[in-house]
């Protein structure tokens, strides 16, 4: 009776992978839209403190970044473990901030943004205020007064949980 051929046992039909490209493309588009290209490699710790009274910076805003924090482990034997400033992707001294600020303004943003450029201070939570005060003082001296302390969104009491 050929009509009732016995099914071969144990052979599952192959899983169709036709939809796999679609799934992967979906993931791809997700990452393309929500992430941005890495600007700089962080050489310092970047664990921002929490705050909830925050404003979002838009991608189109003219922003100049200054990083500060404890150097990561790989660099500690070269530069020590005290908190450091990082400009672009190099460790820098406080005195280099002014040059860096004007260079970034003129090459990346355009001199017309002189008075509206926002300086984002991406400072690690465990940095001491002395370094931050030095950065602020330098920014005041070049009249770059609009700043933004980058924080994570959350209740500020989380800052004291260790």
């Amino acid at each position, binding site marked *: 009776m050929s009509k009732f051929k016995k099914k071969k046992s144990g052979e599952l039909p192959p899983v169709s*992978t*036709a939809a*796999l*490209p679609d799934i*992967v*493309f979906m*993931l*791809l588009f997700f*990452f*393309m839209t*929500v*992430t*941005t*290209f*890495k600007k700089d490699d962080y050489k310092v710790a970047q664990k*921002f*403190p*929490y*705050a*909830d*009274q*925050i*404003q*979002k*910076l*838009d*991608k*189109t805003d003219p*922003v100049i970044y200054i990083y500060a924090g404890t150097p990561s482990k790989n660099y500690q034997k070269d530069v020590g473990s005290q908190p450091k400033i990082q400009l672009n992707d190099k460790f820098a001294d406080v005195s280099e901030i002014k040059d860096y600020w004007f260079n970034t303004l003129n090459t990346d943003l355009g001199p017309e943004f002189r008075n509206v450029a*926002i300086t*984002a*201070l*991406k*400072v690690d*939570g*465990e*940095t*001491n*205020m*002395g370094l*931050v*005060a030095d950065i*602020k003082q330098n*920014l*005041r*001296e070049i*009249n*770059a*007064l*609009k*700043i*933004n*302390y*980058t*924080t994570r*969104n959350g209740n*500020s*009491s989380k*800052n*004291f949980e260790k």
Partner: protein
Amino acid sequence: MGRRNIPEVNAGSMADIAFLLLIFFLVTTTFEQDEGITRKLPPIPPEGVTPPIIKQKNLFTVLVNKNNDLLVEEEVMDLKDLRQAAIDFLDNGGGTNEKGEPCTYCQGKKNPESSDHPNKAIISVRNDRETEYATFISVQNELVGAYNFLRDREAVKLFGKDRSFTKMDSILSHPQTTDENLIEDLKDKMKTIKDMYPLKISEAETSN
């Protein structure tokens, strides 16, 4: 001549190509954290100008020492009480502003020992060089929170529930807000509120 069948393109490697792209984007991009407390630094005063003398009662001093303890108006305080203390100080309205008008919208205790008018009230934050940045941000956050609380309250009173100060601010800074009239309207309303409670937080130079 029969119509020739075009052979189907093999799409089997499509997934591989997509994976390749996906991994490229995973590696080269990051989730950017671009939010924070926006603040304007005070400009450096020109030489020879002496800063105006501020009455002690219009000054709310917050000291943060190197052990991250708070001293508010000469008293030790917990961070969680700071916001309410700042609100009480700002909203006191015990006197008049520069024009001699009393604060009609203040709901404070009208204590003559505390601030005269939100226009005159100044919050001064001083910290040690050894203070931790996280503490500084927490203090700033609480103080901005106090201002936002008062501004929201007045905005809701004047313009209704949908127009609280923080909401207007988030609408205004949203990149998809392009309607000119709306922007003008919001800016106008926000200015009214800002004039009622101008943000005066001085971040004095750190002491050693």
